[in-house]
């Protein structure tokens, strides 16, 4: 089941009353959406508020999502509108339509927003997370590190990774999983203190 079908399944489950399914979509896209919004809204606390608002709007509008576009594309438009309305409500200049509707906003990948973190605590935790991830990556066996890098950074499919690494797909699967689980094991104690507890 491809990535888009996974999203579609989660949407359909949410449309049938399964709120957890929607939460999984939120977990998946929250940072991507926040990244988008921080192009237009400087204050990270406001970015979070607007992100929350956008997700709630998306939830309420779920019945009108028919799946003819990707979920994130739809969410992206809701995010844009929410940010727009927010800026107007705050009496700020709403950026021109070219800024807002630019397709490249969707592919914005840079990390310079990290400068503006509000609370020292949030900043510290983010730094710790980045440090932990990097540290663990360095300590991983080479084949695990390669596999997860090809997947997460190069965005390659399992099949292509198998070709590049000259191994069976099953091995790719297992290597990516072991890489993730090793890093996750180091992160869990950190996240406990981040009060990001929900699950």
């Amino acid at each position, binding site marked *: 089941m491809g990535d888009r079908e996974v999203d579609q399944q989660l949407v359909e489950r949410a449309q*049938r*009353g399964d709120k957890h399914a929607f939460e999984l979509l939120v977990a998946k896209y929250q940072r991507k959406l926040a990244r988008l919004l921080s192009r237009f809204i400087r204050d990270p606390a406001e970015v979070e508020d607007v992100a929350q608002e956008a997700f709630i709007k998306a939830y*309420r*509008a779920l*019945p*009108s999502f028919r799946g003819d576009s990707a979920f994130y594309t739809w969410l992206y438009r809701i995010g844009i509108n929410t940010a727009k*309305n927010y800026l107007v409500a705050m009496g700020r200049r709403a950026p021109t339509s070219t800024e807002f509707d630019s397709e490249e906003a969707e592919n914005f990948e840079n990390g310079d927003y990290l400068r503006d973190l509000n609370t020292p605590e949030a900043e510290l935790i983010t730094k710790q997370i980045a440090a932990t991830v990097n540290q663990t990556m360095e300590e991983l066996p080479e084949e695990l590190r390669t596999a997860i890098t090809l997947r997460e950074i190069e965005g390659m499919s399992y099949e292509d990774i198998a070709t590049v690494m000259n191994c069976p797909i099953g091995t790719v699967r297992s290597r990516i999983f072991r890489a993730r689980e090793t890093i996750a094991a180091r992160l869990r104690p950190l996240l406990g203190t981040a009060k990001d507890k929900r699950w």
Partner: protein
Amino acid sequence: MRRRSLVPLIALIGFLAAGAAADPLQPKEALALLERVADAARTLNYAGIFVYQYGDQVETSRIVHYTDASGEFEKLETLDGPRREIIRNNDEVLCYYPDAKILRSEKRLTRRSFPALLPEELHSLTEVYEIRKGDPERIAGFNSQALILEPKDGMRYGHKLWADSGSGLLLKARMVNERNHVVEQFMFTQLTIGTGVTRDMVNPSFNAQAPAWRFDRFTNNNMAGSFDSGWVVTQYPPGFHKIMEMRRSRQGSSVPITHLVYSDGLAAISIFIEPAGGRTDVREGLSHQGAINIYTRTVNDQIVTVLGEAPAVTVIQIANAVAYQGK
């Protein structure tokens, strides 16, 4: 998601446990009961106090209904909070807001009040609601029969109605959402039927005269015949039918507002479309007034507002399906 398949399970368990019958009513019988309720509201003289609850709010009001040879008259007065009064004289409804000195008036169309649908459309009421009797209860000193209308999908609210066994007058009504939480409830706490109701009891308490008072009239044109506004709703939940289409305008303005009404026999949804024309007070998105959900969106410089006593998902779906197909 299909509305709780647990329900029939419970109903039958109730049957097993308490020995009370809970079979669905035949459509004819169900509709006859509903018509009886509507007839009673229209033809009887009655006066009483009722409690209206929605969300976590509670309001008490007095209502009087009087009919004679010259027509049908009603008066509603709120007894809590800011004073409000609604007077109905036949087809005219006047809303008095004495503290703000505003009088809103609206002319109702004369038509059969209930059922709101033509006979052939009424059949859909029984298709989208499962209707059955509930247990009798005593309300405001009257013996009542209960009628349960349970929706078969999540696009409408559930209803339970308690009507006086003797006269058929509605004593209590409850609207329930898909989580089985009560969205709204009306209940008489005091009631007299038939006797002791006089014409002066339906007179307005306030003498609303300009310039002290402001008048707002929301007119409707196209009283006769059908009107094609060019606006359509391309998708709406099963059981709903368009029952009205008209043009309106506000007092002192020539801006045309289109008003469509869809109903499934128990719930009505109104769709209003007006030009945006530089209005800055439009609040897009979802809001509510008690049990009525309201959804507003802008389509090509037109403001589309959909509202009705139905779940948010319904008003949203309908709003998203409003389109212009006229010339």
